[in-house]
């Protein structure tokens, strides 16, 4: 009985942490373009180049250089500020990527409704990728919220690769769809 109570308590605690982590992911006032505009830009090559550059800049901020530099200053307030800011930015990035995955899936579902010859295996693959991605983002936001963004680099590259694959696959999986 006591184990059951403990398990329930741990689950409730995790849900609470996830809720708090999600509150950090709300969009800021710096989102001028918005996710829908970004996703529907016509120049795909340009977007791909920009995505790669943005990811590179983003990941650079989570390297050791800044951390080491701030430690040499020997001021706990600046160290706390850096830790807080990096965590906040990481959680915002996860929130945006989750929204991007949802928007890709919604777009695919819209196109799939009008498709004449859907491939079941392709649909299953896309659905599994989507579930995997959402689960990874949830785990990642929990990990960043509790332990900080130290291990973010590896996971960010993995989730970004899955998201890019999903984007490509989601667009090509419905050949018979009437694209507006």
């Amino acid at each position, binding site marked *: 009985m006591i184990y059951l109570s403990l398990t329930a308590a741990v689950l409730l605690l995790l849900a609470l942490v996830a809720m708090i982590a999600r509150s950090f992911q709300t969009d*800021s006032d710096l989102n001028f373009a918005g996710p829908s505009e970004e996703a529907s830009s016509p120049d795909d090559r340009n977007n791909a180049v*920009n995505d790669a*550059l943005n990811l590179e*800049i983003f990941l650079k901020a989570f390297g050791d250089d800044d951390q080491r530099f701030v430690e040499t200053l020997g001021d706990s307030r600046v160290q706390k500020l850096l830790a807080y800011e990096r965590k906040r930015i990481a959680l915002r990035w996860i929130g945006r990527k989750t929204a991007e995955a949802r928007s890709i899936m919604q777009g695919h579902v819209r196109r799939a409704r009008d498709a004449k010859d859907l491939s079941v295996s392709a649909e299953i693959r896309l659905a599994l990728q989507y579930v995997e991605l959402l689960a990874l983002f949830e785990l990642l936001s929990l990990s960043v919220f509790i332990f900080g963004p130290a291990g973010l680099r590896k996971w960010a590259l993995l989730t970004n690769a899955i998201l890019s694959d999903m984007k490509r696959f989601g667009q090509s999986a419905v050949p018979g769809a009437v694209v507006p």
Partner: protein
Amino acid sequence: MERKILPADELNAYEDFSSRTLAKIPTAIERLICIASTRDYNSGVYHHDGLASRFSASATAKALQFAHIEAFHAVSAMPLRELSDEIRQYMNWSREEPAAFLNAWQKLEPYRVAIPMEVDPTIAELFVSNVKIALAILRLHLLRQTDRRSDALQLPSLGPRSLPPLRS
């Protein structure tokens, strides 16, 4: 972004602007502020009379927009050590009192005006966050400098003075 993706007239305008104007500006943060100042606050359109006299207004605006995004990415990718050093140089160049400069930048956050409209929102947030941390670092340096100066200005201690003997 790759320069190759710019059309020829915009690329020429960009190269002209880079070689005549940007090349003379020593730091990336100053280049960013300089380019951002060519953007109209109300319309978001870039203007530069000198460039527009040699190229079309549209090519000028596109070239400035491209240069702005490029400069913004350069500053956003900068390590904190370099960024705080660049802001310190800019602060010295402005000839403003360091305390007044830091107060204005920390309270009014004028650097937000330097963010281009067409950038990834995460990178825009990273830029604001990095500038905030760099300003906190500069504030720390300033406080330490002030402490050192006030310590140096204090008279050397002569130890507890002995009272003159009481006359009986």
